[in-house]
C-alpha cells in the first residue's frame, strides 16, 4: 500500500484524495441488508457510516394493533436467530405487569430453551463469521449442529424457527415424550463436535492474523453506547443479566461468565465460543431439575385457556376460551421494562398499558441496534477487509437493528 508520503512525492494533488464506496445493502458479507458508506484513503478506512432501515418492519406500530398473545408471535421475528430469548423478555414483562406466578417447572423449561437458542445463535455466528474470514467448511459443520437443536425445538414447539413457545403464564404445550433423552443425546455428542470445530480455529495463524488487535471496542465506549452482551464482556466486565438481575431462577444454576480483557475481535470471538460451553452446563443442570411431564403453565384463568375437557362440558369455560382468544386479556395500567440476556446482549421490552388488551406502547430494546452504533469507532483506521471482521465480530442481526 502506498503511504500518503509516497503519493505526495509522486503527485502533490493526490494527498487528500479519499474515495467513498458503498458496502451493501446487498453484499455477501454484510449479514443481511446492512449498508456501510465507507470513506477510504487507499486501503485505510477514514470513516465508516452504517446506513440502516432497509429492513425496517414497523414492529412497534403493528404491535399496537395486536393483543398481548398475538404480540408474542412477532417478537420471534425481531432477532430471528434467537427467537426464544425475545419471547422470554416479552412474556416476563407482561407477567410482571399482571403479577402472575409461573410454575417453577415452566421457568426451568424456559431456561432450557433459552440456552439451546443461545447455542444455536452462536453456532450461526461462528459459521458465518469464520466464513467471512475465508474459511468455508466450518459453516457447514455449524449449520449441521444447529439442525440438531432446531429438531429439538421442532419436537417441543412444532416449528423450527419462530416457535412462540413461551406464552404469558407458562409454555404453549408440555414437553413431548422422550424429550429428555433427545436432549441428553445432544449433550453427549455436541461437546465433542464443538471441540473439534474449536480446534479448527484455535491457534490457526490465518484466523489469528485477522482477529488479534482488530476492531477495538473499549469499556468506556461500551458504556457510552449501551453496548451489552459478549461485546461488553470482551472488555473484562463480567456483566451478565442472568447473574446480576436473575430471572427464571437463573441464580440456582452454576455457570461461569466468560470474559476477556483484550477488547478486540479475538476477545469477542473467544467469549462467544466459551459461552457455548457454559450454556451446555446450564442445559445439563436443567435436565436434572425437571420431570419429563408436569405443570407447564399457570392455572390462573386470567391468562391461560381452560383445559379441553372443561370446554366441552361447561358453557362458562367455552365462553371464557372464546373471550380469551378473540379479545385477549386486559393488562393493568402502567409501564414496565424487563430485560433478559440474549445471545447478543440485553434484550428488553418496555411496555406501556392503558388497561386494555392491547399494548399502548410496545418498545423493543434490541441489542444489535446499540452494538452496531459503535461501527464508526471500531472500523476507523482499519483496512477494508477489517470492516468485514468488525461486522462479524460484533454479531449483529439486521432484524434486530431495523425492527
Amino acid at each position: 500500500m502506498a503511504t500518503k508520503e509516497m503519493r505526495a512525492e509522486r503527485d502533490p494533488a493526490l494527498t487528500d484524495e479519499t474515495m467513498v464506496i458503498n458496502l451493501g445493502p446487498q453484499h455477501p458479507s454484510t449479514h443481511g441488508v446492512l449498508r456501510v458508506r465507507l470513506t477510504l484513503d487507499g486501503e485505510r478506512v477514514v470513516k465508516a457510516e452504517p446506513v440502516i432501515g432497509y429492513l425496517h418492519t414497523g414492529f412497534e406500530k403493528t404491535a399496537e394493533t395486536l393483543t398481548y398473545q398475538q404480540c408474542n408471535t412477532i417478537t420471534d421475528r425481531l432477532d430471528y436467530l434467537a427467537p426464544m430469548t425475545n419471547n422470554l423478555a416479552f412474556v416476563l414483562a407482561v407477567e410482571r405487569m399482571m403479577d402472575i406466578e409461573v410454575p417453577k417447572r415452566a421457568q426451568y423449561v424456559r431456561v432450557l430453551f433459552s440456552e439451546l437458542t443461545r447455542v444455536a445463535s452462536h453456532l450461526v455466528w461462528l459459521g458465518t463469521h469464520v466464513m467471512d474470514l475465508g474459511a468455508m467448511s466450518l459453516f457447514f459443520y455449524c449449520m449441521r449442529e444447529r439442525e440438531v437443536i432446531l429438531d429439538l425445538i421442532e419436537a417441543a414447539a412444532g416449528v423450527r424457527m419462530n416457535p412462540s413457545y413461551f406464552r404469558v403464564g407458562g409454555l404453549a404445550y408440555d414437553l413431548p415424550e422422550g424429550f429428555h433423552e433427545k436432549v441428553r443425546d445432544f449433550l453427549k455428542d455436541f461437546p465433542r463436535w464443538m471441540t473439534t470445530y474449536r480446534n479448527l480455529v484455535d491457534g490457526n495463524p490465518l484466523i489469528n492474523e485477522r482477529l488479534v488487535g482488530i476492531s477495538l471496542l473499549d469499556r468506556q465506549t461500551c458504556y457510552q453506547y449501551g453496548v451489552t452482551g459478549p461485546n461488553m464482556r470482551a472488555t473484562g466486565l463480567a456483566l451478565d443479566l442472568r447473574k446480576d438481575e436473575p430471572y427464571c431462577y437463573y441464580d440456582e444454576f452454576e455457570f461461569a461468565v466468560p470474559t476477556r480483557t483484550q477488547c478486540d475481535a479475538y476477545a469477542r470471538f473467544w467469549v462467544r465460543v466459551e459461552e457455548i460451553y457454559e450454556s451446555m452446563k446450564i442445559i445439563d443442570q436443567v435436565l436434572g431439575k425437571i420431570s419429563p411431564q408436569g405443570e407447564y403453565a399457570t392455572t390462573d384463568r386470567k391468562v391461560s385457556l381452560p383445559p379441553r375437557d372443561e370446554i366441552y362440558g361447561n358453557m362458562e369455560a367455552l365462553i371464557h376460551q372464546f373471550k380469551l382468544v378473540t379479545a385477549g386479556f386486559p393488562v393493568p395500567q402502567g409501564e414496565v421494562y424487563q430485560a433478559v440476556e440474549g445471545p447478543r446482549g440485553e434484550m428488553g421490552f418496555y411496555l406501556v398499558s392503558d388497561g386494555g388488551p392491547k399494548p399502548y406502547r410496545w418498545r423493543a430494546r434490541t441489542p444489535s441496534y446499540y452494538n452496531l452504533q459503535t461501527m464508526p469507532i471500531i472500523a476507523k483506521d482499519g483496512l477494508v477487509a477489517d470492516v468485514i471482521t468488525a461486522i462479524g465480530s460484533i454479531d449483529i442481526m439486521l432484524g434486530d437493528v431495523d425492527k
Partner: protein
Amino acid sequence: MGLNNTTKQEAERGILLTTVDKMSRWAQKSSVWPATFGLACCAIEMMSVTSSRYDLARFGSEAFRASPRQADLMIVAGRVSQKMAPVLRTIWEQMPEPKWVISMGACASSGGVFDNYAIIQGVDHVVPVDVYVPGCPPTPEALMFGILKLREKIQTGLPPKYLEATAWTGGVS
C-alpha cells in the same frame, strides 16, 4: 418407444437426439443459479437449504451469486421494506434474461403479519413472481419444493412471469 431405425442405430452408438430447444431448457433447469437476496428470517432457512442436511447442490442450485449479472433466479427471502423495494427492483433489472423470481415466505408474498406502513404488501408489486412459497418461514423442504416446481416450469417451456404478463407495469410508484 417408437424410435425409428436410424435413431436406434444412433442410440446404440451412444448418441441421443433431441431438439435444441429441449436441450437448452434441460440445461437451464439443471443449473438455476440464485442471486443472494436474503432479507430476514427466511434468509436463515435459505442458508440451511444450501448447507449440510438439505444440500441444494443436488439440484444444481447451490451456487449463490453475489452479483446479479451471474444469476438467473432471485429468491426474495423475507420482508421487503419500502426503503428496500427500489434496490430490489434495480437488482432484478440487472439480472440477465431469462430470469425467474421465487417469493419465499408469507412476508414476501403478502406482507404477512406486518400489515403496516413499512412493508410492501407482497413483492409482486415490485417484481413479477413465478413461484410463491408459503410459510413463516418456509421450511427448507418447502423452499426446495418451490425450486423443483420452478424447474418443472422451465422444463415445460412456459415463459417466465415477466414475459407472460405483457400488460404488467409494476414498479414502485
